[in-house]
């Protein structure tokens, strides 16, 4: 049975480097020298999915996308 992996992606056009995503989800995201998010991994482990969704809601530009992937 294939596990459902949760994907995470940043819309680079919408992003304005607020950095809330990296503050709320430091295990998956950090910021580069100009404040823009760097994803460590394209998927999120299950125990962090809820926190990832919180980070996506916190983004003022809704640039963080958390998607379930079969």
């Amino acid at each position, binding site marked *: 049975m294939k596990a459902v992996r949760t994907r995470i992606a940043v819309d680079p056009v919408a992003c304005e480097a607020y950095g809330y995503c990296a503050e709320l989800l430091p295990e998956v995201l950090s910021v580069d020298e100009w404040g823009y998010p760097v994803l460590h991994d394209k998927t999120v482990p299950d125990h962090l999915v809820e926190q990832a969704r919180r980070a996506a809601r916190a983004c003022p530009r809704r640039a963080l*996308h958390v998607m379930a992937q079969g």
Partner: protein
Amino acid sequence: MPTATVDTTRAVTPGEIADACSTSDARSGAGVRHEGAPPRPDHDRARLLSCWGAHGSGTLHAHLEHHGPLPLPRGHGGAAQLGALMEASGLAGRGGASFPSARKLAAVRSAGGSPTVVVNAMEGEPAADKDRTLLWCAPHLVLDGAELVARALRARRVVVCVPDDSDVRHAVVTAAAERAAAWRAPFVIEVATLPGRYVAGEESAVVSRLSGGPSAPAWRPDKGAPLRIGRSPALVHNAETLAHVALIARYGPEAFRAAGHPDAPGTALVTVSGAVARPGVLEVAMGALLGDIVGCAGPVDGVGAVLTGGFGGTWVPATALGTSYTPGSMAEVGGVVGAGVLVVLPGRACGLAETARIARYMAGESAGQCGPCVFGLPAVADDLDDLVAATSPAAATRLASRVAGVDGRGACRHPDGVARLVRSALWVFADDADAHARGRPCPHRGAPSVLPGPVGAP
């Protein structure tokens, strides 16, 4: 606006070509087909530039005389017929991505709705001149291809996109008017002038502009979803790709495959520039040796390295001149076929200085939408300038991490192109990079640039 300094109007005498290319014909077998060479048997007609040089070759009359009437699909199932022909020929896109064209057609067909056919002749790459040449010399081949695809998809609209600074618009409008006068088509042809910036030719940027938005690429997390102009799915093809479709429909997939390589069939237009005596656009059989293609243009000061693919492509060293010009073989030596761009760097030049100029240009050509590109590319250009000036020993290491920082972090492939260009430069010119880092810049960094357009201007 960038315009290539490539001179495509200069006629080349058959004698020159025969001398330069006779060795390649004998050796590679696949051969380099060049305008002006003595005519060979019938499938020579089935080439893009086969009517080059003949007086009035761009007119509809000359086109129909040379190639015959346009074979329209019979009955229903036109899309399936055309798709099958394209599949059998193995045609891959000539806009830079080399994506299988039959698959693109099928994807738009399955999207339903009333599609729009977009002819992408934007050619934002300053070192490329092939689409401009093709539209000037054989616009009806391009429009034939667009018509075949439009009829197959039952599209109501064909939009030819040209850059606003280009003299090609007139040629396209004239050709479209000739066709409109000669026969009725079930679609309308529009000619759209879009801003002639580098990223404006990216297919999602073209579609964005045609939808009334800015000429900026879109973020496409799901590449499978078709591009749309409003609700209409858009089939965006490079102008040269459509010209090949027109030839395949007339002469069949076998004639297409008669030239080229099993992995990369057919011919392609290549723009050769740089330190060469005869810069220009060549129609090349895929699989010809890189050295033979470059040789046809006549390098003036030896070949130090060749920029392949374009400003977002890669450098290959002179040792790679024996490589077969196909996407696969070129990739093995770190090269890129891309949009058929080759810029020859002479033996006595500083590849790092030229790379720095390209990086500076590319930084200025960012759409300005994505932070890593807006801030990262100028930083990469600064680091390259430092490296070239040999003022900062840390520049090379900083550059490597900066380049990793921009790669893949934009909405489009613009920063990715710069990243791979710089990586290839640091590899191909490793000795130079080392010397520069130690504070001993090479003697050629002040040499005039061989790059086309405003990039190379002092």
